[in-house]
């Protein structure tokens, strides 16, 4: 029986050193709400847990340059309770609110929701739509990567051995812009997204959509950024015709599977519905965000 070790480094450098030293048999322990279950079911058998919660900068929410830096170990509840962040990025908070129960969000982190690499992670499409960037630190230094490039497949990330996502950077929020995330689940809470849709859009003074980002979750092997869906909104007043094109583009981008949570057919249909409803909420929020 191999011994499972636990370390709680106080600096990022120590954390990176521990992770790189373990030759892939280490796991980052942030909130632990996915990791502990995977360990319990025997799906993973790490030899070292590196608890990153003692590294101060990973637990910070910092406003700066008009945007935000969220430490990767910030819990869901901390982010939800951050009034200014919630005002600027309500769609991201929509996503975070849906990560499990209050109990789970009391532990689960935004970085963990990303790095667990579930195609159905609720905060990820919202972060992708928001244009968030992951800051990554590893044995060979720091780099930045768009959130949509971090996950490459179920349970798989583009992180190299020893690399940690340390924070997520949210850009400045333009005037007349708004975001929203909606998901479909059979139950009202405590469920895994069958389809998730994040929409972030900006309007001009006439109410024409000038910029948009649309992302979908649970309809492919990872959360998708869907430029064609965004293109359906840009240049429109986000009217019924635009929404119909949005739904069609969203469905075209999906490559869902049949599984215990929903059929392929159902996911395709519902993706279009959810993305339109999310766009409607984002539109309302953009109209209200007029300075």
């Amino acid at each position: 029986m191999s011994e499972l070790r636990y370390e709680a480094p106080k600096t990022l450098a120590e954390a990176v050193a521990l992770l790189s030293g373990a030759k892939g048999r280490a796991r980052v322990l942030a909130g632990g709400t996915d990791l502990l279950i995977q360990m319990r079911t025997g799906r993973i058998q790490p030899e070292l847990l590196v608890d990153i919660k003692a590294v101060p900068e990973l637990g910070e929410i910092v406003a700066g340059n008009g945007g935000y830096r969220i430490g990767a170990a910030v819990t869901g509840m901390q982010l939800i309770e951050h009034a200014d962040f919630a005002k600027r990025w309500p769609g991201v908070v929509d996503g975070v609110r849906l990560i499990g129960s209050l109990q789970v969000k009391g532990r689960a982190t935004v970085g963990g929701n990303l790095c667990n690499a579930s195609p159905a992670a609720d905060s990820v499409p919202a972060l992708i739509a928001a244009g968030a960037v992951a800051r990554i630190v590893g044995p060979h230094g720091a780099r930045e990567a768009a959130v949509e490039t971090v996950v490459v497949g179920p349970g798989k990330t583009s992180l190299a051995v020893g690399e940690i996502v340390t924070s997520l950077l949210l850009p400045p929020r333009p005037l007349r812009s708004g975001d929203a995330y909606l998901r479909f689940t059979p139950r009202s809470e405590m469920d895994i997204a069958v389809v998730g849709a994040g929409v972030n859009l900006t309007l001009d003074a006439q109410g024409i959509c000038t910029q948009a980002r649309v992302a979908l979750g649970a309809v492919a092997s990872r959360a998708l950024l869907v430029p064609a869906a965004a293109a359906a909104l840009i240049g429109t007043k986000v009217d019924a015709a635009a929404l119909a094109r949005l739904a069609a583009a969203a469905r075209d981008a999906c490559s869902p599977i049949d599984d215990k949570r929903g059929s392929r057919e159902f996911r395709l249909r519902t993706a279009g519905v959810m993305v339109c409803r999310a766009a409607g909420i984002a539109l309302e929020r953009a109209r209200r965000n007029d300075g």
Partner: protein
Amino acid sequence: MSSAIGTEDLKIVGSRPLRPDGVDKVTGRARYGADVSLPGQLIGKVLRSPHPHARILAIDTSLALALPGVKAVVTRDDFPDMPDEYAAAGELTINYRDVTRNMMAREKVLYDGHPVAAVAAISESVAREALKLIKVDYQVLPHVIDVREAMRPDAPLLHEAQYTEGVSPKPDKPSNIAKRLEFSRGDVAAGFARAEVIVEREFNTQPVHQGYIEPQACLASTTEDGQVELWTSTQGHFMFRAQCAKLLQMEVSRIRVTPTEIGGGFGGKNNIYNEPLAIVLSRKSHRPVKMVMSREEVFRATGPTSGGNVKVRLGATKDGRITAAFAELNFQAGAYPGSSVAPASMCAFTRYDLDNVRVIGHDVTCNRPKVAAYRAPGAPIAAFAVESAIDELAGKLAIDPIEFRLKNAAREGTQTYYGPKLGTIGYVETLEAARAHPHYRAPLGPDQGRGVATGFWFNIGGETSATVNINEDGTVALMHGTLDVAGGSRAAMAMMVAEELGIPFEQVRPIVGDTAVLGFNFITAGSRGTFAGGMACVTAARQAIDRLRTRVAAIREVPVEAVIWKDGQARPAEGSAIRFEPMSLAQIARLAGKTGGTIAGHAEINAQGAGPGFGTHIVDVAVDRETGAIRVLRYTAVQDVGRAIHPAYVEGQLQGGVAQGIGWALNEEYVYGADGVLQNPGFLDYRIPVASDLPYIDTVLVEVPNPNHPYGVRGCGEVPIIAPLAAIANAVSHALGIRLCDLPLSPPRVARAIADRPA
């Protein structure tokens, strides 16, 4: 037993005192199965089959036994084989030959999760490690999961020696159809010939789990002289004792079972699983052994209820009289025979007064865990089909669905198709109360629908024991053997005893007696707890009262006939010429030791005369036409409960049953992959309702007293789960104008029905 007290005289029955088990439960003191520990205890764990169907060629436990910290390992070789022997337990009878195989596989494994070995070790982690070291050589066999497929002649066969019982002549080929049942009355063909409108439909339901939040847990300690103490979370400690004794070929007196507080059962804790394993592991290791199931084990290996395939045909005349009713019920039994198809067949049409009925039932084995009882076993499945068809028939006849039911309702004296005439029942009263309820007339919004359905359950009595000990200060220790499976029967029993003795409720302390201190008690099932337990407690209290009267007659030197018991006192009979100073219970108790000894009453009865229960439910739903999502907006459950001893706890039974029914209707189901492995053995993907899924569940308690019970009690716990499946399906069907016949009404299924609707 009767001589019911009139309502007007009741002081405690019908009030709402605080439950005696309450403070322990809100402070964390209450001890459930996993909360009991003994010094030196080991942890037991079970190795389970990863295959749905396979022959066990060999089991090698040597590496596991060699692991430091492992103290004992058991396999099939540690348990005696059992011949076919039937006994009553739960729903259908059980066969000990099957029970021993379900507890520990012998020749074959028959489902994903079937136990093949168990270990006892010094810690959970060592036990888990040991399981990995046990080598089982399987010959994997083809499997069958679906009930309709299992019934086909070419289906993979679970039991090579199983020939369908109940058909004549005896079949020459074995089959997964373990049993065929038939109930009929009148001339169904003639009835359909006379019908002016006929509805014919086929319905399907998926297996659902009882979903108790406390996983099965037990602790066994076996001594060197063969005495066993067992603590377990059970609905029937006497039945568990009986089954352990039988399976381990022990004398009953050697096993003492103490039931822990039970964290939900709903029928799922009627049957033994790990208990005999823990006893033998303890015997082999000479240490106490504790075994707690994981949630995954609960889902994979303890009984869900059957999935069912039900065909219904109903005919009626244009004036709304049903002329003929036919149903075929095909139920999954899981790995071994014994589904709830018999009670389901007997419930299917019992709400109606019918001249021509035919019901056929099939009990079908397939590669799933052996089903267990679940709250009114089988009745919800049958009622889903029949009440959906009734709703459709009422619609075709353009008759209000409650009115249609009233036109055909069973009443006192109605001849059932399975046997007896019905006694005093309150079905019509529930229908009338539902029709008069404001809910039934409240306006509905767009994409909303209202559904009505009704439920019937027999309720049972059975063997029951209780002791009423009068303490030396005049307070009472009440010991009963029907476990309080949480509905509050312990409070209700104490209330009835306090009522009988004329003392405050708080002066009666009820406890559940273990198997060593009381006579036999059947499992708490069939809604018998407050009915039969109450009857035993009242009988015991009345015996104590007789003894109190006798003692006072001796003390006061008067004839016993001159002494009556009233308001907590022995006093002169009214109108009697013989006068004496009354004595309170406390006064008698203080003198008891010096006047012949302490006073107690006890009862060991087999309670008869259970009163059938009927309920009528109304539900409003909203359907999201784009996603197929259903939201329950409003729910009203009306039920004849006989008499509510503690109305708040009776309301709780109705609300809980309805919530389970809503889960069954909307989202709960066992999902198997093509490999025959259960895909959703957890609370994340087995979706029981959460608080935000449900509205308030309004209750209306109709009280048509059961004449056979001293306080008019009918059972009340099972009826409320019967109607919700059909009520919700009817509501959704009305909202969409599409008849939905398959459960659960999960969003993908509803969305598909909307999409497939002919334009």
